[in-house]
């Protein structure tokens, strides 16, 4: 009962935020700067939810989740570019989602096979390497299409030997340019709601309890007959798939997609991990809110020029102390505990 209510609050926050922002955007009150930030906010929230499933619920540290985002982004952008002329926008975008999600899940599965059998921090090491490898591999891809079919090279665009009318789709470090601009705030919110729905329902299901049992006590879970590797795999693949969906939104939002460090590298993955940690590990709603706030913050501080970097890091530290320091938790208990909000009574 309580959990259902809790989940409804989460959906409610997202829907209310959507209605408010969409109304503001349609009536023209929202500045173009804010309007431009809405879509990125949704996909960072989506990938934060995905990573929280992996880190918070499964209890395995992944520091290469942007690698899955990268896979989703590139496969879907490739598909959209290829079929831009032949399929109308709506079904093409849906198919792009299916393809991006499927490929990200596939890679999650492939990585999971060897790694999830092991105990310890191996997943962190392997996903870290995966994120870096996938970026460099995609940087070396040259793929073009002409009337003879698909041409592929790892060396350079000239090796493709395409007909003059051929279209170069993936151009090495230049990546994919000219992906159709299909992502919108509405689509982003739908994807966010769907991923919340999947993750929250998974957590409250029999499978979810098994996954959390594996997290809390590996040996006890194994002893009660839970298929440890199977459940780990399930959570990890779902997490990778949702990260892939974030990638699809990403690649259809900006028209230049390059596999460079600032989008898919180690630092980008760590940034997502920061969203998850500061939003509360295992707290899905917290991830959504933290991702939105922390993505917005440096943008809203633009007026302060270079000082915004300084303030951003100070805010991170303050948030960390506020959420996790035992002394502060105690202080919060003493002061905030006195305020009895009517809707809080149910929890006491």
């Amino acid at each position: 009962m309580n959990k259902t209510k809790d989940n409804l609050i989460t959906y409610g926050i997202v829907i209310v935020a959507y209605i408010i922002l969409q109304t503001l955007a349609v009536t023209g009150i929202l500045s173009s700067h804010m309007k431009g930030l809405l879509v990125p906010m949704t996909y960072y929230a989506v990938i934060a939810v995905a990573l929280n499933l992996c880190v918070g619920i499964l209890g395995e540290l992944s520091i290469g989740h942007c690698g899955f985002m990268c896979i989703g982004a590139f496969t879907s952008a490739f598909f959209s570019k290829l079929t831009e002329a032949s399929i109308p926008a709506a079904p093409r975008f849906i198919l792009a989602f299916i393809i991006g999600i499927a490929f990200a899940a596939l890679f999650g599965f492939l990585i999971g096979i060897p790694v999830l059998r092991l105990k310890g921090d191996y997943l962190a090491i392997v996903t870290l390497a995966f994120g870096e490898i996938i970026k460099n591999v995609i940087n070396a891809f040259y793929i073009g299409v002409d009337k003879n079919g698909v041409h592929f090279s790892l060396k350079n665009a000239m090796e493709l030997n395409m007909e003059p009318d051929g279209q170069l789709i993936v151009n090495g470090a230049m990546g994919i340019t000219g992906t159709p601009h299909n992502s919108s705030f509405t689509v982003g919110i739908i994807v966010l709601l769907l991923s919340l729905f999947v993750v929250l329902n998974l957590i409250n299901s029999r499978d979810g309890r098994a996954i959390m049992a594996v997290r809390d006590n590996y040996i006890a879970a194994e002893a009660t007959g839970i298929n440890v590797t199977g459940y780990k795999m399930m959570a990890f693949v779902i997490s990778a798939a949702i990260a892939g969906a974030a990638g699809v939104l990403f690649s259809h939002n900006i028209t230049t997609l390059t596999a460079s460090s600032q989008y898919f590298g180690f630092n980008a993955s760590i940034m997502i991990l920061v969203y998850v940690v500061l939003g509360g590990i295992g707290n899905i709603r917290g991830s959504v809110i933290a991702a939105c706030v922390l993505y917005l913050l440096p943008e809203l501080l633009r007026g302060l020029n270079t000082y915004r970097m300084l303030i951003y890091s100070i805010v991170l530290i303050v948030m960390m102390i506020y959420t996790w320091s035992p002394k502060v938790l105690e202080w919060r208990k003493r002061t905030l505990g006195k305020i009895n909000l009517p809707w809080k009574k149910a929890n006491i």
Partner: protein
Amino acid sequence: MKKFNELVSLAAATVMAVSMIAGCGAASDGGSSDTFKIGAIGPLTGGAAAYGNAVCNAAELAVEEINAAGGINGYKVEYKKEDDELNAEKSVNAYNTLKDWGMKILVGSTTSACSIAVSENTKADNMFQLTPSGSAEDCVKYDNAFRVCFSDPNQGIASAQYISDNNLATKVGIIYDSSDVYSSGIYQKFTEEAAGKNFEIVSAEAFTQDNNTDFSVQLQKAKDAGADLVFLPIYYKDASLILTQANTMGYAPIFFGVDGLDGILTVENFDTSLAEGVMLLTPFAADATDDLTVNFVKNYQEKYGEIPNQFAADAYDAVYIIKQAIEAKNVTPDMSTSDICEALKSAMTEIEASGLTSAKMTWEANGEPNKEPKAVVIKNGAYVSAQ
């Protein structure tokens, strides 16, 4: 415990809501109609900050000069710069911020990928965009976008032609950065153009930004293949390491670069004597002796304390080109963004500009500039014209 978590999330949600509404207040319709509002975008922080700062500073300098001299057609110019951290997503955010400020004309973005991403938005808003240094082909694929610098393909083609026309070499080795759009773009076109020329490409070795400290393998391959000229379509920081390492291994071919090599003499702890004889195609040399360059370098150095590079020169030219185009069509600041764009678009194909980067620049409707590349060679620690 649970309760407090909820309180925190509630507080965070409130913060989010408040911050959003705070963000809304900034919207403006660009109402003031007595000034031209020009915005610039570039990476002002992070690894590529040198380029973004050069562009934004030089544009600022040009705007100040124009205002001091009475503005454009009597109207003052307002200027604002925004940071994009070399990130296409942030570049679009920066563009939207400038739009809220009331920008009517954009000088930017500084780098190729960002410029392409922003051009998608300027096209939708029909805003005139002049990128000083976005050199990838796609930067000007829309009719509202023009550029000041050479495109990557042009640089590759011009380099191949120059090497061939001047019989500089018979065997050419290439070292390029495969993770960089600029570098691999020039490399591709150079290789295409080299087919049928009087030299042969004997080695083409790549590196990426993740392994740009040791070039001995690439140099050894070029040496073993007998390359008597090594083409370096890369930025100067990596090139300075290549020159140092080539010297250590006793390999002394002609090194030939493009405009990214400009700045190599300013690298800290780099023995500039190693750069003797290095040739590069560049539109701008800071120690040229014409009045325009001398004044620009002097003023820039006084204001920002460093010698301007070609990015700065491109941006400085960009502002003056916009001034010239505005004057040609008698554009006034009270016109809408779209009307200004249409007027400037047609002006661009008609004007003939003269600036730091070329004495004579004209534009095609496709946004590409026509100007002559200058080849310079480094002699006694300074650029000297090669011809």
